């Protein structure tokens, strides 16, 4: 049994976000972090590893500097990592991305007892699509928004969080689960981990590694293989300077509430 976790390196949008004049993100000026939900997936995997002694392998697709993130994951306790990187993969939307990652997981080997874990969504795109789409491409069941995971043999019992409560779902391995932050609190690296992670296995899967996989062809990967395209990107209207509302009576209260509802603030 092993656990395969998909992770993404993302710009840290919690601080100041820099936008270039053409409306695209100035990634160079921003710090990168491990996508927060993905850390919950890593923690879920490591918790299972602590209990069951299984192997944990992390997969990421991104440019070569993503190696730093993979070293960090190994310093936390991940056993092996896979960096999927190629110019041909650049510009992929969620559909194309999931094809490529599914091909990488399949190439690495997905067995009966295995579990694939992913974060619910990445903070750069917030789409929550790649996890379910990988599951579809791998032909395995998925459970999203996992708030609790229990494992008994090949059966997993998962608390799937809904807006108005939760569902308890049973599913058998192999399957894919997307994790939310309520699931756990991610651990830190260990000191020993930071000493050893640079000598641990990091596999590179480039275009040549994956090009013969059935899921990979020019029409399904990269910018050209992506069904969706960005038509325009722009910044929302600038938040104006503060505004003092006239009066303090009923009309003022109504005016404020209508401003807030018009802007979808409440």
């Amino acid at each position, binding site marked *: 049994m092993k656990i395969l976790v998909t992770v993404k390196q993302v*710009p840290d*949008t*919690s601080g100041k*976000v820099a936008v270039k004049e053409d*409306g*695209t993100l100035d990634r160079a000026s921003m710090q990168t972090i491990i996508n927060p939900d993905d850390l919950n997936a890593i923690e879920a995997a490591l918790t299972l590893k602590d209990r069951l002694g299984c192997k944990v392998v992390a997969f990421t697709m991104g440019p070569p500097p993503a190696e730093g993130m993979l070293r960090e994951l190994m310093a936390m306790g991940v056993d092996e990592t896979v960096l999927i990187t190629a110019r041909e993969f650049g510009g992929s939307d*969620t*559909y194309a991305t*999931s094809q490529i990652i599914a091909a990488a997981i399949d190439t690495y080997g997905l067995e009966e007892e295995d579990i694939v874990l992913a974060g619910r969504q990445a*903070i*750069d*795109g*917030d789409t*929550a*699509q*790649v996890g*379910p*789409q990988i599951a*579809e491409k791998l032909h395995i*069941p*998925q*459970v*999203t928004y996992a708030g609790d995971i229990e494992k008994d043999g090949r059966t997993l*019992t998962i608390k*799937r969080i*809904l*807006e108005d*409560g*939760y*569902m*308890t*779902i049973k*599913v*058998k391995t192999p*399957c894919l689960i997307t994790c939310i932050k309520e699931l756990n609190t991610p651990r830190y690296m260990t000191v020993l981990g930071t000493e050893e992670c640079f000598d641990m296995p990091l596999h590179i899967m480039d275009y040549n590694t994956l090009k013969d996989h059935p899921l990979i062809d020019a029409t399904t990967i990269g910018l050209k293989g*992506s*069904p*969706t*395209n*960005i*038509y325009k990107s*722009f*910044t*929302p*209207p600038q938040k104006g300077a*503060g*505004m*003092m*509302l006239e009066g*303090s*009576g*009923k009309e003022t*209260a109504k005016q*404020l*509430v*209508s401003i*807030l509802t018009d802007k*979808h*603030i*409440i």
Partner: protein
Amino acid sequence: MAFNSADIAAFKNVWVFCEQRQGKMMNTTFELISEGRKLADELGVDLCGILLGDDVDGIAKEIGGYGADSVIVCNSPLLKNYTTEGYTKVICDMVEEYKPEILLFGASNIGRDLAPRCAARLHTGLCADCTHLDVDLDGYVNFLRTGSSLDVDGMNFDSKLFDVKTNLKMTRPAFGGHLMATIVCPRFRPAMATVRPGVMMKREFDNAKAASIKVIHPEFKLAPEDIETEVVEIVKAAKKMVDLIGADYIVSVGRGIAKDVEGGIKLAEELADELGGVVGSSRACVDAGWISADHQVGQTGKTVHPKVYIALGISGAIQHKAGMQDSEYIIAVNKNDAAPIFEIADYGICGDLFKVVPLLIDAIRESKAAKEA
């Protein structure tokens, strides 16, 4: 003939996935039908809902009242509770048979589970969590005029790659709302989107339209083996407990509640309840023993960044500002128009919180009621 999502000429009509839970239609469905009506009109096609469940004919016609021309209803005990595999299979089979050109889902936890799986199976594009949809180009340009910081008049909206007048333009926030992107899906059909709940306006209910909606019961195949997950139980949660750090809405009280401490806190609680938020406070209230320390926002309390921070009777000392100035929107109510809190507030009301807050609560309730109706 085999289904081919790239044969875009073969696709017609707008579809909306009608989400129901425990036999009750989700409110988002009505918002989506209303929005779908607009898109169908822009394209000059029909609007059709697709409703899955067990014995859900009773709620099918409702969507007609919001503008649907027809509704496809698939009843099966296997569809009683939502399962990814069961719903994906039936929806994809229906899409392959009827070929809608646009397919919308609510961006609920279920919609966001189901839509990507369907898109991957159908080999088409999906845009997540949209806040604005257009087919009509003029409508889109008008939207950008007020909804963006772009100078639209000097812009070129043409594209060599696709027809900008007939493709669905799906706009969504990215990077935590710092950036907006308009996405198109020009080469495959259906163009799919999940739409953020609460954003689209619900139409007025039309009784005649509800009565005349065409209900379709197509044949479909679904076997127990198709479903690989088992729903053991569904639990409705009691009211969620939220702490200051994770709260989207915080209503904080300051020294301004001194004349009636209990009343002031009660008002703040009521306002917070209306917004689904929590009550915070300045240090002064904690020091005075009016409220417990876990409510305290500021340098010596918690640092918060909610969507909306409402400061009631808080002057805005530097210690307090340090803990809340990164809130997305700050609203201040204070008797003193020179209070420093107004320097960082997006909206300020100069007045007595004991008078202003009840009016705010009323206005919010009214606005909610208007939305419900």
